[in-house]
């Protein structure tokens, strides 16, 4: 890991255009090509421990799995920024923020992707002047209630459509509650770093598209790496066997599966299958797993801290977790 750190130091030297630029460029190029050609020989013997290699597999796995969805997300968000006029959102959403929240939550149905895609898209919505409360509702509902996720839930729980309904109901309820909660408590505070529209009026549309996609990918990609590292670490450190000891207690099992969803950071399109395999747990506890996973997990917290600022993330993640657990208990008691 020392090699990238070296580069980071080089890059942080005061910019000296154009010589500084070309030095940083050349150094990075040489480093990357050298790694590609001789990396394995230089570090032969350094990463032979099985635990370390398992960690690396998990880390690369989470990153590789999330990358296409992140690219889809930044592509959509750049398109929103560049090609959809701000006035469209003003017309599409009700004027009053309290009414805009449910509309935004319901429109989460249209973004077919997992949670990595929804962070840049909702950031773009905020930058386009959509009220943060509505963008938050969209951020939470999109990865949980889109058709791909609901279909995979139906496949994972054959013959039990009530699980799909419970998941959709709980997820929509949570996104609306948190949107409204933002209106009550967060409005006017400086926790949320609203992503700025960095482009002057009259910049060519394609130019805006290209540069916002570049910026968003670099930014979100960096935080995705942090989240993937955290998820890999927890995956390797937390033994799965301790799960079996808590399955019998309803409250405890809901909490534990909720926490597991946060730690494992499984993509929302796949979590239903994992939930289905946790057969020693009640349906309510497994519902909590599927409701928490898409809206708060270590990878998402890292992405949100990067996009909306750490002050927002430290308040938003616990609030979301608590509301999600309560909602799962309530909906589980009602529907399952």
């Amino acid at each position: 890991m020392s090699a990238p750190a070296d580069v980071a130091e080089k890059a942080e030297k005061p910019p000296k255009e154009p010589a500084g630029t070309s030095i940083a460029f050349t150094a990075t190029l040489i480093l990357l090509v050298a790694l590609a050609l001789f990396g394995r020989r230089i570090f032969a013997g350094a990463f032979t421990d099985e635990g370390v290699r398992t960690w690396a597999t998990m880390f690369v796995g989470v990153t590789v799995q999330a990358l296409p969805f992140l690219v889809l997300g930044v592509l959509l968000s750049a398109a929103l920024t560049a090609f959809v006029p701000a006035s469209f959102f003003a017309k599409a959403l009700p004027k009053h923020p309290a009414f805009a929240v449910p509309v935004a939550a319901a429109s989460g149905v249209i973004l077919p992707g997992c949670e990595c895609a929804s962070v840049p898209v909702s950031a773009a919505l905020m930058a386009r002047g959509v009220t943060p409360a509505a963008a938050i509702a969209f951020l939470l509902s999109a990865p949980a209630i889109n058709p791909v996720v609901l279909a995979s839930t139906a496949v994972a729980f054959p013959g039990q459509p009530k699980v799909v309904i419970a998941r959709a109901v709980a997820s929509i309820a949570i996104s609306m509650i948190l949107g409204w909660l933002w209106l009550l408590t967060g409005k006017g505070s400086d926790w949320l770093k609203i992503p700025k529209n960095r482009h002057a009026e009259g910049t060519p549309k394609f130019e805006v598209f290209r540069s916002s996609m570049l910026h968003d990918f670099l930014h979100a990609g960096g935080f995705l790496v942090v989240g993937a590292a955290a998820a890999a670490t927890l995956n390797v450190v937390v033994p799965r066997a301790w799960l079996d000891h808590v399955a019998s207690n309803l409250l405890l099992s809901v909490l534990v599966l909720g926490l597991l969803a946060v730690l494992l950071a499984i993509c929302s399109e796949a979590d239903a299958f994992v939930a289905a395999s946790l057969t020693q747990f009640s349906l309510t506890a497994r519902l909590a797993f599927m409701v928490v996973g898409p809206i708060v997990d270590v990878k998402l917290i890292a992405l949100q801290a990067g996009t909306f600022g750490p002050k927002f993330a430290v308040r938003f993640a616990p609030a979301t977790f608590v509301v999600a657990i309560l909602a799962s208990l309530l909906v589980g008691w009602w529907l399952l």
Partner: protein
Amino acid sequence: MKRNVAGLVIVFVGAATVQLAVSNTYLRYVKPGMRWMLLAAGLILIALAVADVLMDTRKKNPEEEGHDHSGDDGHGHNGLPKAAWLLLIPIFALLVVDPPALGASAAARQSPVASKPIQPKSNSWLADNPQGGPVNLAVRDYAVWAVWEKESMKGRSFSLTGFVTPAKNGNWYVTRMGLTCCVADATAFMVEARGQAAPPRNQWVTVTGEWAEPSKREDGDVAALTIDSVKTVTAPNNPYE
């Protein structure tokens, strides 16, 4: 991060993604269905970086002296997020560590007990296979059915392919990891191998033998097979089930 350095990093990330998809290495980390998405994502990233460099050079030439451009330069170019350097870590991991597919160390961390299937599988496949000859079965199916559908499995012989996970007291398991999305959600499916000494850890083998009464454990029953023959094989293209 400077704009041209950013372009370079993105090209490497894109190229690495394409390389993963083309070389089948991606099967160590995700499901086969991800191939096209990875290919598309990689190509989009490369196109993005190339377009950026092309547009930048084209813009630079006519406007070299314009103050408008240099102002934009200060913000746009140096304003790219530093977090992007972190993207080099997975590249480093891929180029240098070359992470292998999950093996015995990951499997040993999970319980060998197969959880009860949500729906009973239909066992028509057993009728299709004439009595006597060993039936080729996925480890993940055997691990579940040998415990939960004992009656139909009794007295039949099976052939399983997986890697070796050693356990205490010279016991060992024929193991296969099952993925639902990526390696982060990998579940180990393990079948206790009886009657033959353990091959080396992580060795891929095809074992043939007869159904055996599952072993009791505190947390449930573990599928078992009384083994007649062990054949070492090369790892399959897709190590997961």
